[in-house]
């Protein structure tokens, strides 16, 4: 494999990791606050559709992005209602939200656009353009560094950079702010937060809404950055993969970046090579596709460092039985 190919693969790794990263951070906020979110997939999906649909109708990708985030937040609120207000089963709520999104998107897309559950292809201002970082053209010829900067780092949609920025931001919010302290506390022992005079439901709703925003960006990126329009079920399991990455990352922001980059790399490899021939054995593409899931099971099995989830995760906060 030559250098340029490696750059190319890393380049697509970055693109493919972005939605995973955003969704993973969404899950991180939610689960750190004690609300388990299987519905990342559904929220991304509905954001993908809404952003593409609104962008197609208004011609503005920014309006589309906002609409996508809005739709995703709406599903977040449903999840919040079920798991915070009505103390329902968070897993079941997440499963339902995924179904809801996968059905609604196609249903509405078909009603609005009559194109078999997709949106029209997005053109011009209805899509996120690739951003060339400054001096990319000037230094591309410098060996090693030039291509890394110009090919790998430069030339992505703005949302890729947003995703990357979200990592330190998430770290800062969680570990260096009042809100972060309370959020983490709510995920560990909500009664401690409650008796300290802070509303558990308030913090949890805030976390769930942040998760909605991040999933919204992730979905919008899929439909308006990575691709030019919405197609049915276009998230293709990325929400679940983000969930896997979250476990992989042990609920930590920087690890989330590494985990999603790893999964992005696996995807990039699987996209490019049908079967990877290692001489002795040939790795079938299906194995590459399944590898993130297999790795997650291995992690869960505790053979590679134990992943301890937030203690109050998945349990509704009930004061009075």
């Amino acid at each position, binding site marked *: 494999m030559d250098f340029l190919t490696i750059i190319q693969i890393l380049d697509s790794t970055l693109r493919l990791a972005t939605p995973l990263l955003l969704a993973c951070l969404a899950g991180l906020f939610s689960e750190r606050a004690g609300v388990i979110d299987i519905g990342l997939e559904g929220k991304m999906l509905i954001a993908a559709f809404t952003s593409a649909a609104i962008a197609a109708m208004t011609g503005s990708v920014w309006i589309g992005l906002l609409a996508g985030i809005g739709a995703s937040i709406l599903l977040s609120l449903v999840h919040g209602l079920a798991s915070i207000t*009505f103390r329902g089963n968070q897993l*079941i709520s997440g499963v339902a939200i995924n*179904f809801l999104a996968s059905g609604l998107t196609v249903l509405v897309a078909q009603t609005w656009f009559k194109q078999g559950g997709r949106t029209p292809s997005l053109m011009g201002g209805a899509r996120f353009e690739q951003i060339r970082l400054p001096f990319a053209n000037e230094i591309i010829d410098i060996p090693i560094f030039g291509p890394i900067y110009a090919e790998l780092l430069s030339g992505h949609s703005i949302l890729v950079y947003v995703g990357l920025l979200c990592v330190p931001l998430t770290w800062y919010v969680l570990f260096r702010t009042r809100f972060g302290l309370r959020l983490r506390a709510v995920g560990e022992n909500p009664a401690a937060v409650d008796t300290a005079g802070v509303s558990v439901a308030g913090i949890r709703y805030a976390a769930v809404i942040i998760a909605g925003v991040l999933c919204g960006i992730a979905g919008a990126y899929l439909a308006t950055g990575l691709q030019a329009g919405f197609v049915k079920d276009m998230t293709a399991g990325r929400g*679940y993969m983000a969930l896997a990455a979250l476990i992989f990352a042990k609920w930590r922001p920087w690890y989330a970046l590494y985990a999603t980059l790893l999964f992005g790399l696996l995807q990039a490899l699987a996209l490019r090579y049908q079967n990877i021939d290692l001489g002795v054995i040939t790795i079938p593409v299906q194995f590459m596709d399944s590898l993130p899931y297999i790795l997650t099971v291995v992690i869960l099995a505790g053979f590679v460092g134990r992943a301890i989830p937030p203690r109050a995760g998945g349990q509704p906060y009930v004061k009075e039985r």
Partner: protein
Amino acid sequence: MDVVPKWVDMLLVPLISLLIAFALSGLVIVAIGEDPVAALKLMVTGALGSTYGWGYTLYYATNFIFTGLAVAVAFHARLFNIGGEGQATLGGLGVALIALYIPWPHWALALPAAMIAAALFGAAWAWLPGVLQAYRGSHIVITTIMFNFIAGGLLNYLLVNHMRPPGSMDPSTARFPEATHLPTLHDVLGVFGIEFSRAAPANISFLIAILACVFVWALIWRTRFGYELRAYGHSEPAAVYAGISPKRIVVWAMLISGALAGMMAINNVMGEAERLVLNAVEGAGFIGIAVALMGRNHPLGVLLAAILFGFLYQGGAELALWTAIPRELIVVIQALVILLTGALDNMVRMPIERFYIARRLRRT
């Protein structure tokens, strides 16, 4: 003391939830510019108006009975098995191997063998998540989700690279030999002189599904294992106190759950498609969750809920055929049912509870 009577909890609450889900679905239909009443009529006539419709309704219901029982058994041990999809996929693999590679003289011999294979393969796929939960504390929900994806990859690999007949472009196995074809309800009821559509795929597996309901009922409420399983589901420390091994219960509950999910394959793979295709399970594993929730994890409830979902599925297929309403409407309805009966349960229950408490206070 229970706040509300049992019948409220078992019947009234799910029924109200269901009604709300349907009302919301009706709104969705209106929102996409269609007539909900006409849609409902079409669904009813399409799913229940002919033996053909019934044949499909019961065919789907059979799938959902198996996956619903699978979820219910695990639920009793407080395990949330989201892996029905993968387990049923593997069950299909088991059935296909049995049907394709062993020359059977008669279906009556092939069927038990296929049942065993389906159950074994499904159980095997549930075994590892169960073991990981029992011995390593890995969260069963996440592992079973992961196993669904891995099952998809595995089946894909096998169908594409090994099991597709030479010369075929389609990643599916060859048709199963004639001798393994199961009698359909047309054949079964014909014996009693009852007319039933020959085209519909409902087959003898439906009767096996009913037997499975009885089996699960006896297992859970009559056997010692069921007693221990439920005890574990209520309280793990109590189970340990009573000398019940949590590891044993978790692993066995998952094995039984997986076996039930896997058994679905005798219906969809052996009974209907008569070959193994990609994605043969078509989400039935997930619908099992809704069915178990609605049926309150009781086999009778599962049976009724499965028939309801069978109706929804067949009705939805009819909608997609004869109207502009896409089949995805059913996915939306299904989502609303899961949401309301499963996650927003308390939204309905809380006001009812308040009513009962107020009434009790007034009495005293």
